[in-house]
């Protein structure tokens, strides 16, 4: 029995590692793509703006689960077969990039118009204005929303279980089927997820305090 227990714990640990890896990779991808999209959406080039808008509209309105089944089971039909982990992680990054993009845009909006006007009056270029005046102020208001996206992403990795990735939720379901003891398994996994979200929240709180303006 103890040996079986350690085996199960090992599997759950492996599931947790997968969850964390997916979360980290997908969030990095979402941040990069989100910045790119935000740049597209604020660029003066109309087709890029249209692409940015269309992307955000599409990916914010299609449920993640639909995207996952579409990418995992649909893409191979058009000859695009990647490993399950890669497909799922990329799908998450694509989905959450739309939300990151919106957070960035909303953050930029919180900066009063006068700030940019003042920067331009000083002769700053658009790039200088963004880098030295707008972003430093906007970043402050982005910390909390970005943390929310991060938490949402971490929780949404559980959906990978539905398309065959044996991450934490999947391993829990697997162990449940095997040992026929759902309560213990779910309680333990719930604790793990609570720990994940709490640590993200704590981290965000710390960053937010560090960048806050003291009044």
């Amino acid at each position: 029995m103890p040996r079986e227990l350690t085996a199960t714990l090992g599997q759950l640990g492996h599931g947790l590692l997968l969850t964390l890896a997916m979360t980290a990779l997908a969030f990095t991808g979402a941040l990069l793509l989100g910045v790119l999209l935000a740049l597209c959406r604020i660029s003066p080039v109309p087709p890029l703006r249209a692409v940015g808008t269309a992307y955000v509209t599409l990916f914010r309105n299609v449920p993640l689960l639909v995207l996952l089944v579409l990418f995992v089971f649909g893409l191979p039909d058009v000859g695009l077969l990647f490993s399950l982990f890669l497909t799922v992680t990329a799908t998450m990054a694509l989905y959450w990039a739309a939300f990151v993009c919106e957070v960035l845009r909303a953050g930029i909006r919180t900066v009063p118009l006068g700030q940019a006007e003042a920067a331009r009056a000083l002769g700053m270029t658009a790039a200088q204005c963004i880098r030295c005046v707008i972003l430093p102020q906007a970043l402050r208001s982005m910390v909390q929303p970005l943390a929310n996206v991060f938490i949402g992403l971490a929780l949404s990795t559980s959906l990978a279980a539905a398309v065959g990735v044996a991450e934490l939720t999947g391993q829990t379901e697997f162990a449940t089927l095997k040992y026929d003891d759902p309560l213990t398994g779910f309680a333990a996994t719930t604790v793990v997820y609570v720990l994940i979200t709490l640590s993200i929240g704590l981290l965000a709180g710390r960053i937010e305090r560090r960048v806050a303006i003291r009044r």
Partner: protein
Amino acid sequence: MSEESRLLFDVPGPRARRRTRIATGASLVVLAGLLTLMIRQFAIHGELSAAQWSPFTQWPILRFLLTGIEQTLLVTAVAAAIAFPLGAVLALARLSRSRWLRGPARVYGELFRAVPLLLLLYVFLFALPRAGVTFPVFWQLVLPVALSNSAVVAEIFRAGVLAQDRGQAEAAYSLGMTYGQAMRWVVVPQAVRKLLPALVSQLVRLLKDSTLGYVVSYLELLHKAQVLGEYYHNVLPAYLVAAACYVLINGALSRTAGWLEHRQGPQ
């Protein structure tokens, strides 16, 4: 020109305009190339053939999908009818002065915002029946969705109330209003109006959550697409059609949110 552009850029001069035109041309060419590549990829693998798509031109199939949309909307409506009032009550509890209300509301919020919805569904599916609590399939889907969303709604409400200018509440107190009166007449009405867009966005999330109905074998839109894909062996088209349906429905909702936001405008 969009609001951000007005913030970030000066009115372009002749050289900037020329550069923009060149960039426009180049990006159009790249986009057209990507689109061609995609269509070619679809065509090569026979995903554009009539047999793959013809089922979706037939009324009985469309009717089958429409009943899925109907179920999705029904789940969304019922879950929202539970989640939004519950979220408001929870927010008020968290803002209340009594520690005995604040504590439990806080634990509830932290817990349900930290548990993945899928895990919560599994609890309703496997764990609760073990404890002798079973629900019909519909409620096995609606209750977890409502519980999970109510915690988020509570957070939205709370943030909205806290974001109010403190002077508003202080002015109310100085007029002799009690805490409850100030909340009821001054703080909450302003907060709700500010929050409408965020609440509509939350409704979109709730609708998206209803796709988890497949876990409990509830025949909502995604599950129906799955059945069609399996039956006619056209998985990709079936899921694409379902995705398009979600974009249409949620797009309408998001548009409403954007319109509400626009009406309020920046003061």
